[in-house]
């Protein structure tokens, strides 16, 4: 970074440090990202392992289970069952077998191998006995991943479109902006929903989601960029560059693009929660990611179905999702104030 204390970026950073809400937002966002991506290193339960005997256990439950292997060498157990079921189904003499199992931790009965394990479910399990925290961590990776990639798509299309439209101006600009206006008038979400339903089960569906979300969200980005470029291209440094014979491409990439960074950063930060919301709405309606790609929207949908008997299955993912949206919105607002970007939409 620049040596001079008056660099606009250090200045913005100092303003940012004064904004406590925005810092909390940043902190929580870092925490959630770390939890989703690094959490599985410490919290090793699989988000897919179904233990039907352990359905809908309460949060903070420690469960003592028995792994059943029909072949000793196998790494993953053939079945995971409770101590009661072990005594009822497998044990020859329940009392004796349970005691040996408790003492040694492992046991063999007629070529079948048993091993005790202990599992701690911090946030309980869902209706199929899968660990909720593990599912939330993977759901978060999917929700955040989709949000970032879709935002990046919208960013690339929108910024380039706005750059060209704003810099060249005239008829081209009028035509390009008319096109954006027409797209704005389309009830896009209806078409997105249609796209999701009609191509259900299509193996490239995740790609479709990026295309669909990117197609909706680049429009505002294009408008913001265009407005900024139209202002920048009249500045002396651009005129000077043009006068000294710098090529149009270099002017766009070296002189104008760096000055777009502020508004683009701010708008992208606000776009990420908007995209997360869109993706999760689709998933909630059952139109988004499929079973083993369950995002937070899917988890909330599943939680709603069993909220009568197990409300924590709804509350836990809802809390994570809402808190992340909060954090991102606070961060975006804070960045806007710090970088002093006006929320212009034309």
């Amino acid at each position, binding site marked *: 970074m620049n040596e001079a204390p008056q660099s606009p970026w250090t200045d913005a950073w100092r303003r940012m440090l004064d904004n406590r809400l925005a810092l909390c937002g940043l902190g929580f966002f870092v925490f959630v990202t770390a939890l989703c991506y690094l959490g599985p290193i410490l919290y090793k339960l699989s988000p897919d392992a179904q233990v039907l005997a352990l359905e809908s256990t309460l949060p903070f439950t420690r469960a003592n289970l028995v792994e059943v292997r029909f072949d000793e060498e196998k790494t993953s157990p053939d079945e995971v069952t409770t101590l009661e079921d072990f005594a009822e189904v497998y044990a020859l003499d329940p009392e004796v077998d349970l005691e040996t199992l408790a003492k040694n931790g492992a046991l063999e009965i007629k070529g079948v191998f048993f091993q005790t394990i202990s599992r701690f479910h911090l946030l309980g399990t869902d209706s199929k006995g899968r660990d909720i925290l593990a599912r939330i961590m993977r759901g978060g990776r999917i929700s955040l991943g989709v949000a970032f990639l879709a935002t990046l798509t919208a960013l690339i299309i929108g910024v380039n479109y706005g750059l060209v439209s704003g810099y060249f101006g005239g008829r081209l600009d009028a035509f390009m902006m008319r096109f954006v206006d027409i797209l704005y008038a389309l*009830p896009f979400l209806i078409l997105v929903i*249609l796209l999701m*339903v*009609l191509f259900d089960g299509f193996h490239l569906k995740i790609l479709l989601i990026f295309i669909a979300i990117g197609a909706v969200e680049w429009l505002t980005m294009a408008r913001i960029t265009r407005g900024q470029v139209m202002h920048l291209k009249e500045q002396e440094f651009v005129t000077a560059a043009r006068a000294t014979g710098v090529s149009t491409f270099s002017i766009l990439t070296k002189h104008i693009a760096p000055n777009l960074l502020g508004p683009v950063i701010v708008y992208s930060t606000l776009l990420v929660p908007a995209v997360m919301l869109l993706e999760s709405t689709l998933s909630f*309606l059952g139109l988004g990611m499929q079973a083993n790609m369950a995002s937070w929207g899917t988890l909330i949908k599943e939680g*709603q179905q069993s*909220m009568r008997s197990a409300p924590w299955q709804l*509350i836990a993912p809802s809390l994570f999702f809402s808190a992340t949206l*909060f954090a991102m919105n606070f961060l975006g607002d804070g960045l806007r104030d710090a970088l002093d970007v006006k929320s212009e939409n034309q």
Partner: protein
Amino acid sequence: MLPFILRRFAQAIPVLLAIYTITFFMIRLAPGSPFSDERKVADHIIEAQQAYYGYDQPLLVQYFTTLWQHIRLDLPPLTSHVGLTSADIISESFPVSLELGLWAMTIALALGVPAGILAAARQNTWLDYTPMSLAMTGICLPTFVVGPILALVFGIWLQWTSVAGWLGPVDRILPSLTLGLYYAAYIARLIRAGMLEILSSDFIRTARAKGASELRAILVHALRGGILPVVSFLGPTLAGLVTGSFVVETIFQVPGLGRHFVLAALNRDHALIMSTVLFYASLIMLANLVVDALQILLNPKLRYA
């Protein structure tokens, strides 16, 4: 005013045509057909069905036939509801969605406008901070989180309302609240910002100087201008209510048009998908037109521009 309205109608035609074209080819490119069935059906029956619904024609012929049917509003029979047309489905289920939307809008205005005025009139006191923090919460919480949580708390734990359905007046409460709270929050913020700007302007100072009471200055003089941002927000609101109704109608099992739209897409009922999409598109564009016209009527600056 009239030329403005006529121009907007003229602009709507290419947009509707574009929506029609995109939807038509999207439906036809998608895997699955309205005649595929889990049971095995004899080929000649499928052929007879296809001939009845006009699917034996070349695609381009079908494109124009369907277009002409929609222009004349003479809608084709549906594949998923024998003996009914899209018009029957829409006229039966749209009133439900409309009622839900109107209740939601009522809640949004009844909560949002007073909260916004209060916050602006008592800026930087707890009467400002409390409603505005609630509004921030309302904006960040998505419909599909609010809906199930409301159903859990009021429907299951407190047993005050029903959890789902659309029969009696009690069933209206939770869906309308779920849909309305977000807009209440947004409207409160818009009104507060609009009022704060106006309350510091010269004509309000004049009104106060001439002895207008504080209540009169706020409700009569300032509100007229302060409400403008809300009017321009009404256009996007209507579009949002339409898509919001997909989620809310799914959560609370409301038999509205949103559910029929999703079901039509799941059943590959091409005729119903097409009619519903065109219906929604026309509705949203009409609403935008009304909102823009209202804005011109309310805002003197726009009227003479």
